[in-house]
């Protein structure tokens, strides 16, 4: 059975964490079309969270057409894992090269993360002012 | 609610029955020997013929054997027992619920709290009436030989026979239930109820009871000088009739004896009056409890 995790300190709402975990698992191949997700009760008891949160996550997955409920049987993955796009593979390669360069330049993990955050913020400011 | 009330009072019920059983055992032991002595000395015949004036020696012997056990020590101990029974049963009824916080469980079920209280009171009061009646019956049977000599108007008999014993228990119970509600503590409620009960009990017995009805006075002249030894507790009493309750004997000018007394025929009348007083007090206390519970808002204890 697929087991979810909850990160209490991440600042991300619990239901979104569940949705992300399913998306991630699909990308990595840990979940495949036809797999049954655990019941609302199983997740609520396992993670000790509000079952309404699980319902919300599953509804979101339905909305994104990643999963669907079959009455009386449970919730099942409906999407096939998205194939890795060739552009994504290129991006992945250049990212690895960049990380290697940052490491050689003496940047530690924290500095790298901060750098990424700043760059992201600048980019979103650009996008907003462009609108 | 019947089962709930029974289960909550189960240990008290067992204690009450044990007390009754112990009392019965004691009563059987002592009363049997009393009855044996009574018939052995043929006191019954003597009393029937002469109200006891013809067999003073036998009477004295009997009194020496059983007087202290049956009359004095018995009364001294048992005076407080009806009060204790009443407060021990009454104080925890509300006091314990409030003290331990279980009222939040008891009164949030589907039974409104006044209904809960009414059911509890009805059942426990009924049980106390039965207990009181049973104790009264045992003691009445136990004292029967002695009562033939002393009558049952004297306080050592009166307090335990007839209706008053049950009424004493109920009054202490009522006081303790009310105290439990007001003080929200079991032990404090027991103490707070017992004190007033005892005071009222003694006041009624020694100050009011002699005057429930206007006493009669018997004047006798004694030309040969008055025999001062005939007093309050003799057999027969100064009035010459066993069963009368002699209140006072006064000798004037060496020639006249005035005896104030309540005739034995008034025994049940007095029992009803006294029981009525204590039952009225019970009703007032329980009524106040129900009313206060209904009106009271919250218990932050």
């Amino acid at each position, binding site marked *: 059975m697929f087991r979810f995790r909850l990160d209490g300190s991440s600042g991300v709402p619990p239901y979104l964490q569940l949705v992300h975990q399913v998306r991630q698992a699909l990308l990595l191949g840990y979940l495949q079309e036809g797999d049954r997700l655990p019941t609302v009760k199983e997740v609520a*008891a396992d993670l000790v969270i509000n*079952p*309404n949160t699980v319902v919300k996550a599953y509804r979101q997955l339905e909305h994104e057409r990643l999963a669907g409920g079959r009455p009386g049987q449970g919730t099942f993955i409906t999407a096939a894992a998205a194939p890795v796009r060739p552009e994504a593979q290129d991006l992945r390669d250049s990212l690895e090269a960049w990380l290697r360069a940052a490491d050689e330049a003496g940047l530690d993990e924290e500095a790298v993360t901060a750098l990424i955050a700043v760059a992201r913020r600048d980019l979103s400011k650009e996008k907003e002012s462009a609108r | 609610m019947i089962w709930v009330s029974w289960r909550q009072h189960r240990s008290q019920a067992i204690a009450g029955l044990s007390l009754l059983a112990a009392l019965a055992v004691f009563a059987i032991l002592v009363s049997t020997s009393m009855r044996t002595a009574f018939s052995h000395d043929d006191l019954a015949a003597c009393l029937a013929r002469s109200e006891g004036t013809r067999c003073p020696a036998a009477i004295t012997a009997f009194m020496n054997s059983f007087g202290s056990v049956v009359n004095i020590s018995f009364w001294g101990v048992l005076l407080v027992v009806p009060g204790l029974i009443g407060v021990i049963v009454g104080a925890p009824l509300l006091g314990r619920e409030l003290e331990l916080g279980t009222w939040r469980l008891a009164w949030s079920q*589907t039974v*409104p709290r006044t209904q809960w209280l009414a059911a509890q009171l009805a059942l426990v009061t009924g049980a106390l009436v039965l207990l009181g009646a049973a104790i009264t019956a045992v003691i009445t049977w136990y004292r029967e030989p002695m009562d033939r000599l002393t009558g049952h108007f004297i306080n050592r008999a009166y307090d335990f026979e007839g209706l008053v014993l049950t009424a004493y228990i109920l009054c202490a119970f009522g006081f303790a239930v009310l105290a439990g509600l007001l003080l929200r503590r079991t032990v404090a409620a027991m103490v707070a109820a017992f004190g007033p009960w005892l005071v009222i009990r003694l006041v009624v017995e020694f100050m009011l009871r002699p005057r429930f009805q206007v006493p009669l006075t018997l004047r006798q002249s004694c030309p040969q000088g008055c025999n001062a030894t005939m007093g309050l507790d003799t057999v027969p009493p100064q009035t010459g009739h066993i069963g009368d309750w002699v209140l006072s004997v006064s000798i004037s000018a060496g020639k006249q004896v005035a005896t104030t007394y309540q005739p034995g025929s008034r025994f049940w009348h007095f029992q009803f009056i006294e029981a009525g007083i204590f039952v009225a007090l019970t009703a007032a206390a329980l009524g106040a409890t129900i009313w206060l519970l209904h009106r009271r808002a919250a218990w932050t204890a």
Partner: protein
Amino acid sequence: MTDTEGLMTQQGADGGVPALRTDRLGRRYGKVWGLRDCTIEVPAGAVAALVGPNGAGKTTMLQMIIGLLEPTEGQVKVFGQASRANTTQTLARVGYVAQDHPLYRDFTVAEMFRLGQAMNPSWDQKLAAARVDALGIPLNRKVRRLSGGQQAQVSLTMALAKKAPLLVLDEPVSSLDPVARLEFMRDLMAAAADSALTFLISSHVVAELERFCDWLIVLCHGHVQLAGPADDLLGDHRLLTVPRATADSELPGTVIQRTDSDRHSTVLVHVGAVPLRVQGHAGWQADPVSFEQLVMAYLQRASLTIDADPAPAAQRPGPSAKAVTR
């Protein structure tokens, strides 16, 4: 937070009767108001948290909701029916687990259930027996010989077996050790998943609240400070980082809490559902607010403004009435 909006409309247009609605609820003790002007709503099926410091009035509010206490002013409606304290109809509608889960210590578990059966016409004995069986609690054991966690479980079982549609729990875990606490909440969440019940849980601990509740009510000094669906309330607030010199009047929305440093200030603002634009303001940054930050800010604000006329609570009307179905 368009995701949330999309989901809300997906829940369907049936407004449904809210599980709980209080209208200007208040309670006075002598001259002091323990609770005043409290208007809240909890939709059916929600797991709602009532948060506030000790002495805020949580127990007073809960006891008026249950029907143990008569309000001084205002009204309580459970599933549309007005409540009258200490009446059979009102008491039957709400299940209650009081603080410290009181039970009769001399009773066995089976006897506690017998009491429940005797005092509740709607008692489900099968449910009660099945629950304690699944939890490994023997029926013939006296309550005083159960552990604290087990006693809490028995109390919860009694409230569930009453089959009332609204369940109120007053600080159910504050007296339990951490392991018992986790097990109790795990069991409670499973019970919530199994049924269509509505839960209202009070707590004075803010941490870890986010995982349990989808509806939040913040109570402080006898007044409701914040109330509504948890996710929407988070979406209505932002944590702004602005230059120190920026005045409150220049900030969007309502300032809830402001912390000033040498050169910058951190301000928690309530902006409502309107999307926030921070570009055009040099040196401004808007970040989402965490659950704990949000609740703490409102509690601290309440303590500061205790003498002032309390501002109307930040409320979320409309979609709040929709039932949550599981």
